[in-house]
């Protein structure tokens, strides 16, 4: 394996470069996936049937907490990658740990939010609007859950093997994924919650 030392660790081998490009392309497909879910949501957002509409069930407080927590986690994973580039394994692991912890917090609040909706009689089966809402939020939430497992696995590898071209590559790709989830959340926050509350 040829290692090019003039490049950051995550780009240092041919295989690593391919993987990063491949993941960018995969994120392109993910954008299409979420765009489709948004399109479905926008199509159905006023089809509330006999169920409640967005303005009845959306609450600002949990949504603000989720947003702040997730945006901060995007910042901390950025710091983690910065630490990785400096070769500081301990700082990198700390920031990744904080990121995953914040992700867990986000997920906890989101699950509580779902429970509240269901408690208020707004279930996934109530109306097309709610089906679309739960599917969109749920898909994002499932991505975060998968990210927690994946990020945890990477953290263990960094702990065991240190910062190698391989682990650095995985960590960097994971950071791309995490930022992407943040971007999706910004759209959810603006076009689902803010628009729904107005």
């Amino acid at each position, binding site marked *: *394996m040829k290692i090019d030392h003039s490049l950051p660790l995550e780009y240092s081998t041919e295989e690593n*470069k*391919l*993987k990063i*490009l*491949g993941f960018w*392309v*995969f994120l*392109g*497909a*993910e954008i*299409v*996936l979420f765009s*489709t*879910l948004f399109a*479905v949501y926008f*199509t*159905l957002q*006023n*089809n*509330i*049937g*006999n*169920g409640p509409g967005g303005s009845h069930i959306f609450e600002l407080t949990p949504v603000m907490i989720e947003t702040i927590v997730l945006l901060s986690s995007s910042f901390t994973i950025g710091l983690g990658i910065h630490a990785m580039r400096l070769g500081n394994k301990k700082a990198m692991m700390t920031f990744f740990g904080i990121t995953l912890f914040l992700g867990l917090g986000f997920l906890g609040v989101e699950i509580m939010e779902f429970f509240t909706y269901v408690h208020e009689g707004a279930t*996934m*089966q*109530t*109306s*097309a*609007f*709610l*089906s*679309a809402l*739960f*599917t969109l939020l749920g898909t994002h939430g499932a991505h975060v859950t998968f990210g927690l*497992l*994946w990020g945890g*696995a*990477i953290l*263990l*590898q960094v702990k065991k093997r240190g910062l190698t071209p*391989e682990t650095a590559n*995985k960590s960097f790709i994971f950071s791309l994924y995490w930022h992407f989830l943040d971007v999706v959340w910004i759209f959810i926050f603006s076009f689902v919650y803010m628009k729904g509350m107005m």
Partner: protein
Amino acid sequence: MKWDEFFVTGEPMIYAAMVSIVLVSIAIPAGLTYFKKWGYLWREWLTTVDHKKIGVMYIIAALLMLFRGGVDALLMRAQTAVPNNGLLDGQHYNEIFTTHGIIMILFMAMPFIIGLMNVVVPLQIGARDVAFPRLNAVSFWLFFFGAMLLNISFVIGGSPDAGWSAYFPLASLEFSPTVGNNYYSLALQIAGIGTLMTGINFLVTILKMRAPGMKLMKMPMFTWSILITSVIIIFAFPVLTVALALMMLDRQFGTQFFAMQNGGMDMLWANLFWVWGHPEVYIVILPAFGIYSEIIATFARKNLYGYKSMVYSMVVISLLSFLVWVHHFYTMGHGVMVNSVFSITTMAISVPTGVKIFNWLFTLRRGKISFTTPMLYALAFIPIFTIGGVTGVMLAMASADYQYHNTMFLVAHFHYVLIPGTVFGVIAGFHYWFPKVFGFKLNERLGKWAFWFIAISFNITFFPLFILGLNGMTRRMYTYSESTGYGPLNMLSMVGAVGLTIGFILLVYNIYWSTRYQPREVTGDPWDARSLEWSTPSPVPEYNFAKTPVVDKLDAFWFAKKEGKSLTEEGDYEPIHMPNNNGQPFIMGVAFFFFGFFMVFSWWLPAIIAGMFILGTMAYRTFEQDHGHYVTVEEIERTENALRGEKK
């Protein structure tokens, strides 16, 4: 659920199918044990990450599915051959036309094309494998087990029966209460994820792994077509993923997306399906265009006419393919404005397609044409496909479409596009690249017999359907009365279908015959062809290129041959880094199969266990450390000398 609901019962044909499935599943392990081939199968095929072997497996699976879908087609033609026929009942007929559509598009045409691109693309660009060999194996096994999942629906639980487009509300739980459409949503989902991964894999491969000097505009046309196809796959398949997930949620979790009440919108399904479905048509046709471009240039002994316009027209087709989906349901009430817009975009597609047709004709003009089997398919494609294209323009006119919609005219049209386009294309490519993979040509005489049977019978089968459609026969009707007068033409079509069957049997017999008797091919370039794959020995060694070729123009291999130059630089061999084989993709595929099966029957606990197992295989993969292996210089020398007959 009771056992008599679990297995499909009450039909002699289904019992026969069950018996044959049981016999085959006993015969395969018995044969493997008898010939002591278990180890060989596992080491050489099930665990392989070699793009050529994966390609071969795709093509074998596609041929099997061609026969499965072909039997469906024969049954349909047999049922409608005479008025008031009682061969099949309505339900059985519904299942058969549905699975025929799904299998032919998703499990025959797609894997055949993906198989060919697996074999050919890395060789054409001078690469040693695809960008992600392991992911490539995952793609294959997801496709394979997705296809198997759909196929067992025939005997277990019942097949999907709402048409391959599975329109709501017909496909909803209320109107299709069997598990058939659960199979649809899950089997297609599993195979579709595999296809999406293939798209990503080949896009990166083509963008990043071309031989030194091969600029984008110096790539062979087939590689170009795959590059564009990969982009379409990446943009189209996530839409299918969402559509199928919503379908599953609606049918199995009680959501209201496509429901008739509580704000659901059944037309949403039609839109989502065709936003994927129309680009899908171009996913299967553009690679075939690429194949024809290679074959026509090779056998006309000329460089491809209008290379740049070929590329641009494919790009334009790929863009337009996302802008025409509404033409599949003009009659479902969108109003004049919407229909007009989609009418215009649809007709616009015929412009770049026409450019391509003329480019092929100009390539042929004054060429020294040799009429080999692949070339015959390419030559037959041009006029037959043009009939399909012209009737397509007729259908594109929204107001006229009200007459054609849902009639046999439409059925005739898309068979006239897909069979000469895709099926002839992949068969031509199959004959063309066969010697590269196996080291001998398919027999030309048998190949030409098969060609004439297929080409003539195709027209006998499908041309009558145009007339039947104009006479008012609708598609998907399982029988008709004698007074309609549809009888004779349907009988003619049946005769054609028998001819097609003979043609395809000849084609497969040719593989058997050629394997036994055809002389081995030693040059590596049996057709005197133009692109890089022909610079390798046949069959291609595991590492493809002993030395990476250096390219300076389009068809560099052709010019190097004419000028007696070498495409590689002087110097000794270097050790080659190759990926290791691994069984994890196969195991993952099996896990997906069980996950899908349990989901179909809503057996949640087993489904959750299978899902956890899938996550487990992913975890295994991320913790695994696999740095591949090196092929040593001595081994390269040995292989090259053996394959090239002692010359360096």
